């Protein structure tokens, strides 16, 4: 808002990059889950019936992915809350850019979290290669 506001902003300029981290985690989780299932089922075949190793692997990916998304989300949320400013963070200042980036990343983190849970939900219900 004001120039004095800039004291809340860290030295390093913000990177637009960080916006993509939560969706990137979702994408990697999605790919890893599907690749694991496809490869395991192609090798072991549907004869094997139960796909428990796949379920365990995807459970592990999911824990890692959700943790990462939560961490990115938390960092972003703190950026959004720097200083006293309220939404929509649309002033042409370093501080508001910082907050805006944080807010947008927070929303994307929530979306990525839900999407990752949806991906994992498949193996909660489907436990075989059929």
């Amino acid at each position, binding site marked *: 808002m004001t120039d004095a506001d800039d004291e809340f902003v860290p030295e390093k300029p913000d990177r637009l990059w960080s916006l993509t981290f939560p969706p990137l985690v979702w994408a990697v989780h999605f790919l890893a889950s599907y690749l694991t299932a496809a490869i395991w089922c192609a090798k072991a075949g*549907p004869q094997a019936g139960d796909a428990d190793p796949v379920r365990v692997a995807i459970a592990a990916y999911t824990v890692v992915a959700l943790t990462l998304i939560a961490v990115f989300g938390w960092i972003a949320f703190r950026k959004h809350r720097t200083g006293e400013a309220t939404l929509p963070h649309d002033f042409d200042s370093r501080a508001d850019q910082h907050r805006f980036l944080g807010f947008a990343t927070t929303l994307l983190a929530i979306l990525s979290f*839900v999407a990752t*849970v*949806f991906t994992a*939900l*498949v193996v*909660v*219900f*489907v*436990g*075989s290669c*059929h």
Partner: protein
Amino acid sequence: MNSFPTQSALDPAGQGAESIAQLFYWMSGGAALIWCLVIGLAVYAIRRPQAHHYRLTRLLVIGGGAVVPTVVLTCLLSYGLSMMPELQRPAPEGSLTVHVHGVRWWWRVEYLGPSGQPIATANEIRLPVDQPIEFKLFSEDVIHSFWIPSLGGKVDMIPGRTTRLKLHPTRVGQFRGVCAEYCGGAHAQMNFDVVVSDAATFERWLADQSAPASEPETDLAVAGKAVFSQRGCGACHAIRGTAADGLVGPDLTHLGSRLRLGASLLDNTRQNLRRWITQTHQVKPKVEMPAFEALPEDELTALVAYLEQLK
């Protein structure tokens, strides 16, 4: 044969179709409810004279716009996924297995006999009621999709791969199956008949189908058999028990017992059989069988008499 077989996923006659219909009703009911709510709110927003309460509108936008859809989608996804294992589970070992090949624009059907010998037929699938049946699906050219809406879901037939489907009919009756993936010119006429009967009737039918073709008895039919071989029909069609062993077109060994002709296009009557042979391309444009327009009347009559008695 003028009964209209059903072809509606909302008139289920099999376990798969029952779950799918249930899912459809839940989704339609839910959609109707949400639609009423949204339209109701829109009307309220327009009609209300005073300013809207700020906190309440925010709550509504975040709650109704983000939280509620997420919850609804999660419920629907879970409900749909919970149906998958049963729908995808193969029929138990030893169940009746039927092989179906999609061919432009008809269906090659193969049952396995008691001693494992294949029993070929086409464009008609008969099934016993109240037991799971395993289908192995193939394609001989492009992608087709095998679908009997009244019995269950659809599964693609992919060249070079074997796909599978389990169906479990729960009601005796006649149903229609379709190709559900555009596959070229006569795609819309690529259908088949499904007859679900009690187990004893089915077994009798299968035993009949496994036998070679009956020898023609009348003079006319004997003459027809000669026409069939002289005109080269046997290059494309097989009639087991005769020299005809073509694989390009449908097996005709028991053509006379089928309900319809040309992949469920025409009722199987004498008149339609004549039309099929002489006006093939008017009846089913693009079809991969040459029309025998110039066949002399006496040959045609004999040929049809022969085909009719292949019960």
